């Protein structure tokens, strides 16, 4: 009997070969390989054999069962793959060209993008990045940076004065004094920030705008250093070699003072609409920090000297993003802000 059963193996395998579906396979498993399956039950028949026969038959039995099991697993894997492939055939083709509908899109303000760029470059060159108040004293905004009492900038029409005598800072230079006192006398720092001017608004004027001030003070910081640093910062910001040139300029807090022109980063100096075909853009005011500014912050101008510069981040953003109306930056207009992604 045992022998006949063993002879059945070929037929079992043949039956397995005929299996086409997972259901049939499950039935097959139940029929032969489960605990009560025929193949498993055959094991019971072994006990009737003599010990010698039993060892021989047991070995044989295990080989055969293993063979069935291997075929079973192969079949199982085959059917599974077949089923997946069948399913894939029926999967719909997804229109990859169709945009997601109503997807949320966060953005940072363009000024944030530029401030980060400038800060990153300046930090890599050893400049501290300092932040400061928007409401400052008249002393900080004017006296401390050597703006004389009768300078036009102090007039009502340019400055937003508060009833408590303070004012909304009109220039980031208002932080020079505090920074020199806090970090000086040897200090390199930039201080981007928001400024306010009381003037009629139009496409190129806005009450509030962002500037970035910078300064470097040490024992022998020179005009040659100023040119080097500005050239390096600008080349860093625009990711290409930028030429700079100085012209005489007047700002009360520096002596000598300069206007700094940069070779136009948008056309490489060939002339375009941004640089009004001149190949140069007026980039910033700068100069050697006035001795009075140092003195007032407790820095001895006989011993220390340095330069300061200030440029308009908002103006830079206008050029960078080709924005022709400065008022858009503070408009809160999401249609505009969402369009600026980097």
């Amino acid at each position, binding site marked *: 009997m045992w022998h006949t059963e063993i002879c059945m193996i070929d037929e079992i395998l043949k039956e397995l070969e005929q299996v086409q579906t997972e259901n049939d396979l499950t039935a097959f498993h139940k029929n032969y390989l489960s605990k009560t399956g025929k193949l498993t039950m055959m094991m019971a028949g072994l006990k009737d054999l003599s010990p010698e026969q039993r060892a021989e038959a047991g070995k044989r039995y295990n080989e055969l069962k293993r063979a069935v099991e291997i075929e079973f697993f192969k079949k199982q894997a085959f059917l599974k793959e077949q089923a997946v492939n069948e399913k894939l055939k029926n999967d719909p083709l997804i229109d990859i060209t169709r945009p997601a509908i109503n997807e949320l899109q966060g953005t940072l303000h363009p000024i944030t993008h530029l401030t980060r760029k400038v800060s990153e470059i300046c930090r890599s060159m050893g400049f501290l990045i300092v*932040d400061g108040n928007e409401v400052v004293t008249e002393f900080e905004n004017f006296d401390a940076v050597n703006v004389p009492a009768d300078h036009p900038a102090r007039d009502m029409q340019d400055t937003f004065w508060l009833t408590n005598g303070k004012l909304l800072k009109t220039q980031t230079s208002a932080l020079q004094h505090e920074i020199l006192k806090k970090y000086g006398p040897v200090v390199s720092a930039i201080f981007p920030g928001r400024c306010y001017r009381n003037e009629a608004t139009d496409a190129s004027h806005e009450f509030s705008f962002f500037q970035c001030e910078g300064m470097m003070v040490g024992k022998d910081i020179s005009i040659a250093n100023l040119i080097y640093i500005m050239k390096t910062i600008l080349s860093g910001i625009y990711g290409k070699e930028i030429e700079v040139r100085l012209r005489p300029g007047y700002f009360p807090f520096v002596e000598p003072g300069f206007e700094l022109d940069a070779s136009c980063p948008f056309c490489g100096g060939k002339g375009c609409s941004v640089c009004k075909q001149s190949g140069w853009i007026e980039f910033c005011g700068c100069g050697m920090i006035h001795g009075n500014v140092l003195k007032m912050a407790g820095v001895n101008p006989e011993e220390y000297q340095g330069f300061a510069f200030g440029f308009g981040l908002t103006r830079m953003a206008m050029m960078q993003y080709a924005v022709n109306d400065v008022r858009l930056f503070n408009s809160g207009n999401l249609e505009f802000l969402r369009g600026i992604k980097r």
Partner: protein
Amino acid sequence: MKISVDWLKEYVDLKGITAKEIAEKLTQITCEVEEVITLGNGLESVVVGKILTCDAHPQSDHLHLLTVDIGKKEPLHIVCGAPNARAGIVVAVATVGTIMPDGMEIVPAKIRGCESFGMCCSYAELGYKAEDDGIIELPSETKIGTPITAVLPGLQDEIIDIDNKSITNRPDLWGHYGIARELSVIFDRPLKQIDTSIVHEYDNLEKLNIKIESENCLSYGAIKVGNLGGVVSPDVIQNRLYKLGHNSHGFLVDITNYVMFAFGNPLHAFDAQKIGKISVGGVTEGTEFITLKDNKISATKDMLFIKSDGVPVALAGVMGGKNSEITNETTDTVLEFATFDASNIRRTSVAVGIRSDASMRYEKALDPELNWLAAAEVLRLMREYAPQAQVKSAFTRVAGKLAQQPAQEITVSKKMLNSFTGVDFGKLDKMVAAKLTALGFQPKIDAEKIVVIVPSWRRWKDVTNAADVIEEIVRNYGYQNIVPVAPSVSVAPVPYTPIAQAKDNLKDLLAWKYAFNEVHTNIWYDSKALKQLKITAPSYATVANPFNKDDNQIRSTMLPSMLTVASINKMQNNVRVFEIGRVINKDGSETEHLAGVAVGMDYKVLSEMITDLFNRLGIMVQYQLKQLDLNVWHPKNHAQILYKNQVVGSIGIIHPQVMSNAVGFEVNLSAIDFTTVEQCVAPVLSKFPKTQLDFTFVWNDVYAGLESIWSQFRHPLVTKYCLTAVYENKFTLTFTVSSLEKTLDKAEINKIHQEILDFAEQNGVHLG
């Protein structure tokens, strides 16, 4: 300020130098040139002609038919409407092809049936001067056929327009002579020296009575002249003024303007009959003064006046008075050549709201010595162009104490010069000496130092210290010649300040994870928007001079700004906006806030977001239910945000009357200490199995109460707990239990189970 190149040539030889070169060099070395305007271009084809015949036009009552000899074989036929056209006069004829200054091209034309081949020009049509009472009548001996440009020098000129802002610090540049001096230095050409000896030719005449009562008057000079009434200015003066944008008002007024544009010193003319003893000083506060342009001024104690026998007759440096102005009846004139304190003039000018050519110059701190140059020029012009004029007094000039101070000497060490500029001037003594000498600084240079004497025209608020002298040297050396040098500073890492880092992280998370849009708003409330949104928000600082009178309240909370932005974006989907900005608090302090508003966001999602934002920075925040005053909040659903048990912000649903379906938050970042964030340590993983124990507690208050109890629970084998389910007032907390050393057996776990229950009972928390 407009500068005529033709006029400059009177003071400095500019042969071979183009206006473009002048503009370029000035921009590089001195000041900013905005524009170069070419005048009289293409007028070479306007030639001198003589009217041979002049007949009436058959079809017109005012046109003439002329034949004009312009030196060609055939005379020209020209139709002309000028009333003074007549045979015999010598005129300027624009021939066919000429493009006139106004852009009109002269072409052969038929005017009411008669052919015309040119145009007889007036001075105004050629752009020479404003006067326009007919065609030009040239002296009869003028050679026919000569180009008009050779007959009227000054017709062709170039005007250099200088940006006034770029010379605010250069009182010496407010006239042609000052610019000529710069050019003489730049191009190394000699500058004409002005001979002032003419003013002393009248020294034996009677002196005027002048007294300076205030230090705000640096110097006061005056001279009385007569017989100038009705004198017309010569063409050269009219032309020069016209090119700078001024019409002629008769010789007397013209020369005051002319001399101001030449040397920068403003002049004033009084009717001598109305001038007695002159004194310069203040008047009683409240004294009424009427300017010659009828501005009514109530004097303040700071204002400086020119007084005649004690009565104010001019607001010094700003404008003359009605009571002493020149009229048609004026016979004699007192001309003023004075210098006043710059700050005083500026303050007065701002206070009375009058900004004149004079005040604009005086507020730059003019050189008192200019009085001499100006007086000499006036006398020279009178002698040349108005010989009938009579000088009736000595040029009387009084100098105040300040103007009598000796010239300042400044020493610049060569070491400082080199260190300041980063340029080695060691071998450049000759260049330095030449430039400083030409600028009038009388330099003495030795091995260590440069000593200069500041010339009078640079000493007032201009060159006062070594850095100023260095500027003179370097700008003339040429900024473009400075080689960039890297600074020699110590290399040390620059810290990224924790607050800056925190702000960057918050912005990134909000934008890139939570899809918020960063916006910028002003520091004041938008009054109109607040009204529309029905928001009342407190303000503790007020703008004294707001641009819009109602937008004067500085914000103490940023939520109204965010709601304003959200409201103007109603047409956009998924409005989620935030800003990191500043507010002014009740105690006057300024703090930095993060605020945002999101439309269509679930309140719970928002609170999870805030928790997440700060968790990532190592900051734990909690919420506490509390009724807040700000009327933007839903009456119930809002809360305070706590950090270390201090209130740092608020969060909640926006009141539907303000905005429907919106949530908002605001956090005072200045109140959070980002510097002492605990070190982030990796979790210790156990090799042994974990067990989770669930407890469902009944709790009839907000979750924060339950949380505050369980946050106190400590057990060495309970690694964490969290809220895993909520049903009505039943809160399920799941506690994770594990040991690093072994697998916990049933008895041990049961013990922990009991300990948790005991802790709950002790704190009045019961199983549900």
